[in-house]
Each structure stands twice: as C-alpha cells, then as structure tokens.
C-alpha cells in the first residue's frame, strides 16, 4: 500500500545552517509515527516542509502519492495540522474557530456546522461553545487546536509537540483523544521531546539530532536494540565498582556521582551488582525510550 508520507533525502538549508540534513522516512497508513529529538533537531522544519510552508532545498517528497510542492494544495486539503504555537483565532468564539476554519477547506456550511458540533463533543468543549478563546485554559486551547485540525476529516493528522506546556491531566486528555483517533484508523505524525508520550502513542518512530535521523523502529525494538532490558542506576560509585564495570565491559555511562549500567538481560552479574552495590538512592528499573534517547543524543544541554 502507498504510504501516506514518503520523504527521500530531504534537505533544508537556512543560509549556513543545514536544519534538515538528508533525511528519509515513511509514514504508513493507519500508524502513529513519531519524530523525537532535542530542540533544534529539525523536527518542526521537517513538518513545515510536509505541508508546503517551508520549501525544501533538495530531496523528494510525496503525500498520499502526490508530489509536494507541485500538488501541495490537494495535499493540504487532506491534512490536519496542529501547529506548536497557539494559532487559534482570539477574535472568534470556540465554535466559530471551527466553522471559519472549515470554510478555508471550502466545505459546505451545513456540514461544517455539524462537524464542529461533533468535534466539540469529542474534545469535551461543547459547553464552552460560545466562549471566546482567551477565556480558555491552556489544555482547552490545545484540544481546540486538535479539533480544528480535524475539521476537514483529514487522512493524516500532523501534530507538532501536542502536549508541550500542559499539566498532567491535560496531557492525558490529549493522549486519550489521540489514541481514540488512532484506533479509528487515522494516520498520525507527531513530534515530541517527551519519551513517555512517544512510547505510549507511537507505533514507529525516528530519533533525530542535528538535522539527521539517528535510528528508526518501534519503541520496544529501539529500547531492546540500544539499551537492553534493564537499567541499574548506582549512586556515588566507588573505585571498586568502577573497576568491576570496566573489567566486565558492561555498557554504562559514568556521570560522576551516578553510574548508569545497561543490561541486555539479567544474569548472575546483574544479581551481584544489585545485591552488593545497590545502596540508598540506587534505582533498578526497566529500560525506557529516554535511555535510548540520552544514549544516542548525549546529555549535554542544547541551545
């Protein structure tokens, strides 16, 4: 089956800066595809290229089998885009935000009206129909952005950091809605720098850094491949422990006051370390996507 997005060797150059540096990926129909990366990895730039906002410098891009930028108008008619920044219309009511947006897609007024009512129910904002946007909370605004992106009944939903800046309750609300949409068969592409979000929502993902794709796969396979099954975080490691880890060639990271050891699988050595060296403050846990992310993109601050 034709993938909904096929990007081949995409490059975006801003003067000296190569924001996106030769990336290729596919989004398959019905899946949730994630783009992870620290700030400045090129996620937002990639998304902007997908809907024709940013012309790309080199490469080849098709959505629904249609080439971009040549057929970008037809592509955009079948896309829902939820941008990172709040771009809701503060001059309009909650309902009019959906209705006016629906007009841009040239949908029949009666259908837009019905669809808007349906979507307000879906995001739990039917009771705030006549409220003005500035009266809404951050979580409500994000849900309204989501509803607005769905007004044209898109085949692909693009979300740029859908839960950044939200409180935990609002994040879970958004996740529930997205899971519901995915279960209905909607294809989703999202960017995030929250690993729990990616692990929970994404069928497949790529981790990007400095404009390149580092790895690609399902969350579970990436964790298995790049970290293993378990992680032991030992506090204030002594010389003896350090020597042991080096001698046994255990995959690890030495953060000074903290030693992070990665395990392919539990074994005799694992038992010994967790028994003899695991004092107060020591953590034994399952490997997560965050471990993969930090191992691949490093721990130093960006920007």
């Amino acid at each position: 089956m034709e993938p909904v997005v096929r990007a081949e060797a995409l490059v975006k150059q801003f003067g000296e800066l190569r924001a996106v540096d030769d990336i290729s990926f596919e989004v398959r129909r019905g899946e949730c595809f994630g783009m992870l990366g620290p700030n400045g990895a090129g996620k937002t730039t990639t998304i902007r290229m997908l809907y024709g906002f940013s012309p790309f410098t080199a490469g080849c891009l098709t959505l629904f089998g249609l080439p971009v930028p040549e057929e970008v108008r037809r592509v955009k008619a079948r896309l829902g885009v939820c941008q990172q920044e709040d771009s809701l219309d503060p001059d309009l009511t909650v309902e009019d935000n959906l209705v006016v947006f629906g007009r841009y897609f040239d949908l029949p007024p009666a259908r837009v009206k019905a669809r808007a009512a349906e979507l307000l129910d879906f995001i739990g904002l039917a009771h705030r129909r006549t409220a003005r946007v500035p009266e809404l909370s951050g979580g409500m605004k994000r849900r309204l952005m989501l509803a607005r992106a769905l007004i044209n009944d898109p085949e692909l939903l693009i979300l740029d950091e859908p839960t950044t800046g939200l409180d935990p309750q609002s994040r879970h609300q958004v996740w529930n809605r997205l899971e519901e949409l995915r279960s209905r068969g909607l294809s989703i592409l999202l960017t995030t720098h929250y690993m729990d979000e990616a692990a929970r929502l994404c069928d497949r993902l790529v981790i990007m850094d400095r404009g390149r794709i580092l790895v690609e796969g399902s969350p579970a396979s990436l964790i298995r491949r790049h970290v293993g099954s378990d992680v032991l975080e030992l506090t204030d490691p002594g010389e003896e422990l350090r020597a042991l880890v080096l001698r046994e060639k255990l995959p690890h990271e030495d953060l000074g006051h903290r030693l992070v050891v990665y395990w392919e699988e539990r074994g005799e050595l694992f038992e010994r370390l967790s028994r003899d060296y695991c004092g107060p403050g020591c953590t034994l846990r399952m490997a997560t996507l965050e471990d993969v992310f930090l191992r691949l993109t490093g721990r130093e601050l960006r920007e």
Partner: protein
Amino acid sequence: MSRLSASLRRLLRVWQRNLTVYRRNWKISFLPPLLEPFFYFLAFGLGFGGMVGEVPLGEGSVSYLAFLAPAIIAISVMGNAFYENTYASFVRMYYQKTFDAMLATPLSLAEVISGEILWGATKAVLATALMLPVITLFGLLRTPESLLLLPLALLGGLAFGALGMLFTAVVPTIETFNLPVFLFITPMFLFSGTFFPLENLPHWAQLLALSHPHTHLVQAARALSFGHWDESLLWGVAYLCLFTAIVFPLAVSRMHRRLIR
C-alpha cells in the same frame, strides 16, 4: 478560468473571516464613520468656514463645506484601508498567527494577503456608505452622482490597503508603523488638496503632492461629487489603478519573503 474562480473563492474565505469578526463588533465599528462628518463640519464649517467664504472650483466657486465634503470621504477611505492593513493585519500576522493557521489549509499566501487587502478596501467602502447619507443630509452631495463614490472608495481602498500591506511586510515591529504614518499619511492628510486647493501650494509642492495617491483620490472624489466629468477624474482613477497594479503584487511578494522560509 476555473482556477481563477477557485482562487477567488478562497480569497473571499479570508475576507469572510474578517467580516465574521466585524459583524460581532459592528455597533462600535459603525460609529466613527457616522460621527466623523459631524466633527469635521463642526470644526471647519462653524469654526473655520465663516472666515473663508467661497472656494474657487473649476469655472465657479463652492462653499467651504462643499469643498471639504468629498475630501472627508477620501481621508476616511485612506485611513480605513491603511490602518486595517497595517496595524490590524500585523496583529493577525504576528501576534495571533492567523496567517500561519490559514497556510496549513488549502489557502495560498497570495490568497491570504489578497483577501486581507480586499477586506481593507471593504472597510473603506463601508465607511463611505455610512458617510454618504450623513453628508447628503447636509445638502453637500449630489444624488445619484455621489453614489459613484462607492466604487471609487473600493479602488482607493485597494490602493491604500495594498500600500499598508507592503509596510506590514517590511516593518520589524508594530511600533515601526509610526514612521510611514508620519511620513506618508499625515502629509497626505494635510497637503493633498483636502483642506485647501492644491493651487495654493508653490509649484514644487504641487508636483510632490501629485505624486501621492491621496491627491488623486481627493480630486476624483471632488469631481464625482460635483458631477464634473473632467480630466482630473480620469487622471485620478488612472493613477490609482496604476498605483494598485504596482503596489498590490509587490505587497504579496514582500509578504512571501517575510513569511515563507
């Protein structure tokens, strides 16, 4: 042809967005155009006009208020379109991210910008439509000739809307609009044959005034109001058409340079 009409339909969607907002606040928006003529007539008719008497115009002469009336409409056309496509458009573009949201839909940037300029012109037409009956009540406009001021307001609105949008495309901050307002709008308000005949200016200043679109808008409006079908009307309209034909696409292309990266 069908591409053009589809594009026009999409452009009207942008226009319609602004109309939807306008209709929510129409009571406030209606007031200035209705009251403005009163303010001008009070200041210049009672306070000032008595000292002036008749103003020579064409073969004969007219009262100062009659001389002033078409200029008030021209000023309002310039102001409504220019301010809509500078301050108001800038707020939508920069602070509200309205254009960004629109560009994720089938709308193109050219359609968004054209819709915005058409809206600026529409506000100029609306203001004119509201002022016409008020000024007519004072017996200062000839009906039905003065109805032609409406299409003229559309043309003038497009010219000043496009000019405003061009500034919006290049200013770094909203405060920067003070500069074009001071350098263009204020002189055009004062020196384009609005409050006194252009002929009273020294020759070089007349030429300078004639290079500004507002002078032509005032002359055309005055010619229409008195039913003078002379060449100043023809030149005025021709100038405004040419001005719009140059500035409109320039505004779109500069906006492209600003927003699409």
